[in-house]
């Protein structure tokens, strides 16, 4: 609900929090001082972070507005299906443990900054690298827009003028990241975590007390929302598996991993990052608490305003300010990382590909400027486009990025995969996935699949990935058989 008057106390707390992160972000430029004209320093913080800093940084890249706003909103609006985020993140770290440390090693040895750098070098294929670059940029943009949207909801909750506050927030972020790069995202991630942990711990204790205990609060939630309807089992699992496989294909999550100083740091973080998943689960429970507290969907933001409205309703104004500030800053950290990652793709895999003589210093300059374009482009998009577009494009982005799995993950694990096979798979996966999205009206990431009379809802990304993998495997097999025939022909001639 948009209130006419500005809630002064909350606004002062949020402004104070933004002042703190601006100071921290500007200090980051001098922290562990290095030449920030070097892309490794600007975009990867010098590839030197140990376990603790990488934990904060990766936490900042994985847990975004999607976790803090969209998942509790799904629980609030649709019920148990929103908890797919838990199995999703279980699978994410198992997959990450298998693939990302190896990718770190290869990146460390050869100086890769983006997933497309790896693909370009590993497959020696410009077209496959272009496909991965294009998918990475296209999939990251709506993800940045979702972060902007999350901040907008927090600002609107306390009656701040949306346009002015969003431009201010992103102007600050743009200056900080332009100057200090990933170092600023890392230090702000630490501040953000202190705020968000305080908010969540206080909320899971205070909110149920306020509502008469968990038992009483849950009794107010319609029983149908507490369990998963049987027909959504397939949707639940495919959402979890598809999203779990996709997360570390996004360029910004790889940025977080590559900023660490060793592959063992990456492995250890797969052990300790689930601590955040527990926090996410607690936040998702707040979606139920919002129902119990009698929160209504907002006229303007629908279910997405559920948790901000809950914090604002049950807490004293100053602490509501802390909670809303933590959600807003929780969106700024990933937004900065996504902008850096998308900008790196542009600088290294588009610009440098077209102008091979670009000096490393110039590359960094291009990347810095591109990161500004990404941020302001996202703000402009969110303010101009209908809000449903933001959420729908993000769903589509999840389907598309998953189609780079053969090129990136299979490329890491299986050395003999030919580029043409991965490219054929990508083409089919993107084509089929997009067809299914359009067929579903482009406002849902699920569609009905079935054999005969048995039908089930599935997350579109997974059938598209299956088609992709079948084509990739098929083409790889054919090329291999043809290769053997050629060898035999050579041997007999």
């Amino acid at each position, binding site marked *: 609900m948009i209130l006419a008057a500005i809630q002064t106390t909350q606004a002062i707390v949020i402004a104070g929090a933004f002042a703190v992160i601006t100071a921290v972000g500007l200090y980051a430029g001098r922290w562990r001082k290095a030449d920030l004209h070097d892309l490794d320093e600007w975009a990867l913080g010098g590839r030197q972070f140990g376990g603790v800093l990488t934990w904060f940084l990766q936490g900042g890249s994985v847990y975004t507005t999607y976790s803090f706003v969209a998942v509790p909103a799904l629980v609030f609006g649709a019920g*148990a299906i929103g*908890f797919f985020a*838990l*199995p999703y*993140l*279980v*699978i994410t*770290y*198992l997959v990450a*443990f*298998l693939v990302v440390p*190896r990718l770190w*090693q290869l990146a*460390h*040895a050869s100086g890769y900054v983006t997933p497309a750098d790896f693909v370009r070098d590993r497959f020696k294929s410009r077209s496959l690298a272009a496909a991965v670059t294009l998918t990475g940029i296209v999939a990251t943009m709506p993800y940045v827009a979702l972060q902007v949207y999350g901040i907008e909801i927090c600002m609107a909750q306390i009656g701040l003028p949306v346009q002015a506050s969003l431009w201010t927030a992103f102007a600050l972020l743009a200056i900080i990241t332009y100057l200090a790069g990933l170092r600023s995202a890392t230090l702000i991630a630490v501040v953000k975590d202190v705020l968000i942990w305080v908010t969540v711990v206080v909320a899971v204790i205070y909110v*149920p007390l306020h509502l008469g*205990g*968990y*038992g*009483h*609060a*849950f009794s107010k939630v319609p*029983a149908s929302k*507490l*369990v*998963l309807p*049987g027909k959504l*089992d397939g949707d*639940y*699992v495919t959402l*979890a*598996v598809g999203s779990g496989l996709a997360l570390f294909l996004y360029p910004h999550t790889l940025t977080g991993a590559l900023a660490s*100083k*060793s592959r*063992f740091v990456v*492995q*250890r973080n*797969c*052990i*300790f*990052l*689930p*601590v955040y*998943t*527990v926090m996410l*689960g607690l936040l*998702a*429970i707040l979606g139920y608490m919002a129902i119990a507290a009698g929160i209504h969907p907002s006229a303007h933001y629908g279910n997405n305003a559920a948790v901000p409205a809950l914090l604002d309703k049950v807490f004293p104004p100053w602490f509501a300010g802390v909670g809303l500030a933590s959600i807003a800053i929780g969106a700024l950290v990933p937004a900065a990382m996504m902008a850096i990652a998308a900008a790196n793709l542009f600088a290294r895999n588009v610009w440098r590909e077209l102008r091979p003589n670009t000096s490393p210093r110039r590359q960094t300059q291009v990347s810095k400027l591109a990161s500004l374009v990404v941020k302001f482009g996202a703000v402009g998009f969110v303010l101009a486009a209908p809000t449903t577009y933001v959420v729908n494009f993000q769903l589509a982005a999840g389907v598309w990025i998953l189609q780079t799995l053969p090129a990136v993950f299979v490329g890491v694990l299986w050395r003999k995969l030919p580029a043409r096979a991965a490219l054929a798979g990508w083409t089919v996966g993107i084509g089929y996935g997009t067809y299914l999205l359009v067929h579903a009206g482009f406002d849902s990431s699920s569609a009905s699949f079935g054999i005969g009379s048995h039908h089930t809802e599935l997350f579109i990304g997974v059938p598209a990935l299956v088609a992709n993998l079948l084509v990739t495997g098929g083409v790889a097999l054919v090329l291999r058989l043809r290769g053997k025939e050629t060898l035999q022909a050579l041997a007999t001639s």
Partner: protein
Amino acid sequence: MGQVEGEARSQRRRWALWLFVLPVAAIVYPPLYDRVHPTVGGVPFFVWYQLCVVVFGGIVTGVVYLLRGTERTVTG
């Protein structure tokens, strides 16, 4: 940390990776845990069971990490 590719060493105790089947098996079939009771402190089974699997997944990953070799035991 080292620059060595460590291809041979990264094969160390490869079987340990099969332990990852356990957390996946625990969540891959929702009818297994799709119910409200027993609740814990009012929280439905569906929720707290999955929170437990999240922690279990982290523990399994930790065990696999130790079995496959840490920074001190593997130089590659």
